[in-house]
């Protein structure tokens, strides 16, 4: 069965209370240029991220945060995926203090990308998970 048509589908999500989306939008462009299908949403509450990720059957979920809400939101979304038996690679971006990286990794986050990270590192993280 031919599978040349497979694409890596990525959901990038940011809270609709968060401004400063130039980073995540730039990442969306970069991932698109790397041949991925990128869905970008803003969400009011985490349940929206879960719903969209399930409907779009994405392999990767990336959430972007400007300083607040990451511990609560990441935990809520990852738990919901577990309940739905959904396997996804989870990455987080934005202004996340280093002291919290351990907690996020424990939750199951595969990559944390703060301002100053190289976008090619994000691409590598995603492609290595998907292969």
């Amino acid at each position, binding site marked *: 069965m031919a599978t040349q048509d497979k694409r890596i589908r990525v959901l990038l999500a940011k*809270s609709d209370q*968060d*401004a400063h989306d130039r980073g995540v939008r730039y990442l969306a462009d970069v991932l698109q240029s790397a041949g991925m299908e990128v869905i970008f949403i803003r969400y009011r*509450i985490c349940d929206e991220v879960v719903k969209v990720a399930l409907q779009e059957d994405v392999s990767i979920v990336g959430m972007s945060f400007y*300083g*607040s*809400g990451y511990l609560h939101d990441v935990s809520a979304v990852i738990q919901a995926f577990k309940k739905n038996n959904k396997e996804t690679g989870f990455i987080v971006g934005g202004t996340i203090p*280093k002291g919290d990286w351990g907690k996020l990794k424990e939750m199951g986050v595969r990559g944390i990308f703060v301002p100053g990270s190289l976008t090619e590192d994000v691409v590598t993280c995603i492609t290595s998970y998907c292969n």
Partner: protein
Amino acid sequence: MFNEKTIEKDKIVLEELHKQTCETDESKLEATTAGGIALKPIYTPSDIDSMEYEDISAPGQYPYTRGNEALHYQRQPWVMRHGHGYGTTEDTRKREEFFEAIGGAYHVGETAEDKPFAFTLALDLPSQCGYDPDAPEALGRVGECGVSISNMWDLKELFEGKKIENTEVIFITPDASLSFIAQYVAYAETRGIPAEKLRLKSCNIFYHQWFWDTATFPPQYAVREGPELIKFLRENIPMAELQSITGYNPGEAGATPVMEVAFMLATAIGVVEECMKVGMKPDDILPRFYAHDHLSMDLFETVAKFRAKRRMWARIFKERFGCRNPASLTLRNYPQTAGALLPAQEPENNIIRATLMTLAGVLAGVDGIWTASYDEALNVPSEKAVKLALRTHQILYHETGIPAVTDPLGGSYYVESLTNRIEEEAQALLEEVDRRGGYVKCWEDGWFRRQLADEARKTQEAIDNGRKVVVGVNKYAVEKEVPDAMFRVDPESEKKAIKRVKAFRVQRDTASLKKALGEVREAAMAIRDDWPGSCGCLMPALIDAFRAQATIGETHGILKEVWGYGYTR
């Protein structure tokens, strides 16, 4: 501008310089400003010869290129607009008091006793967006990045015992200013202080969605927040500043200085036109508009930007709107140092960066500055960083001698030339906005957003490939590691805020509250359906609601339901 002999001599010198520069490697001379304007290595009289004296004129003289007043810092130093806010209002009050204790005041060079004080309140995300701390949308975000304010008890904790007639307050929220100001008015009443004694700076950047991508009201209704609040403040709070025209947030989203100028002017024009539709006159409102601009690292471009903007503002409102009042033609500026330019790597470098950006503001003769703390990218500012941000102002003011002379860069061949270039390009861009139907159209269509996104992408690509150097990040980087946060908000803050708002709700008279909220809903519907006739009905209804002990989430929630809330693009 110059006499023929001077220009002749200049031409001779230029030829000699040209010979010298030809021998230099071209690539070393291909410089542009950060915003992309081509620069020459040397500027001389010939570069500004075509100007008339009147174009530059003197400080305090139309078109105010050199400044709004002849004597500026000599008479009144700039305002220190450092913003504070995190955790509960108790935490934030402590931070304000700390700031005062280390020498913070309203104007740099003053001490705090008996003089007006500024409370520039950075609100947390839920408060900014009108969610009470116990709303599901607020979970995990309460008190982080700003202070949680939702009810009267919060205000009480913040201001009790303070002389609020002496306190200039600004609530930093993109579209909830109406509720916050109404609540503040109701609070002041409980202290026996009438609205006319209050000092307020209205934020109300209801037009924010094209540069600050949070959810908001659809453009058609969002624009009505402008005249509604402006009308109320004009008629009830004479010491209030009516409207913020922001260039800071567009700058953060990627705007070049030229774009910042053009889009700020387009916004101001649009807001004024909307106010005219409800019967206000430009001369009645412009004197109390103010700008919140972007201070960035290209020092001379930043200085030239302010000069170009002052000149364009004066000309537009005189020629296009027929303003006579000189106060309408002189735009006051309260910029902020660029957060986007303060990376997390090697944060101490940001002390230097913030100083240089603040210096640019001072050289440009602005009226107030918010200098960021060097650890902005890592956390809510630590006390150490706040102190340094304050000392930056104090050292610039007391130890450099700059404030002794108005517009010290005036007459510089380079600066005047760059001012002209920025004006030319901003003028062309402003005409483009006009051609496309004005700022609301460009906002709705996503044109503004695309301009900003394109620039942001170009900048990021330039940083990614090293063409644009950020010291300690893509060059001379010693460690790839980012330091941990230097300051943490007490994680109990969220619980405290939730507990408080729940307790607050329980002790209210539900009957009178229900009635008052019903009236807010009716006023919101009138704004939606009977504009412009209904202008002026919402603010009184909001104040009544807060008198009846409404919370911010309750009033703002009604506006969201009635007007719709989300994204257009």
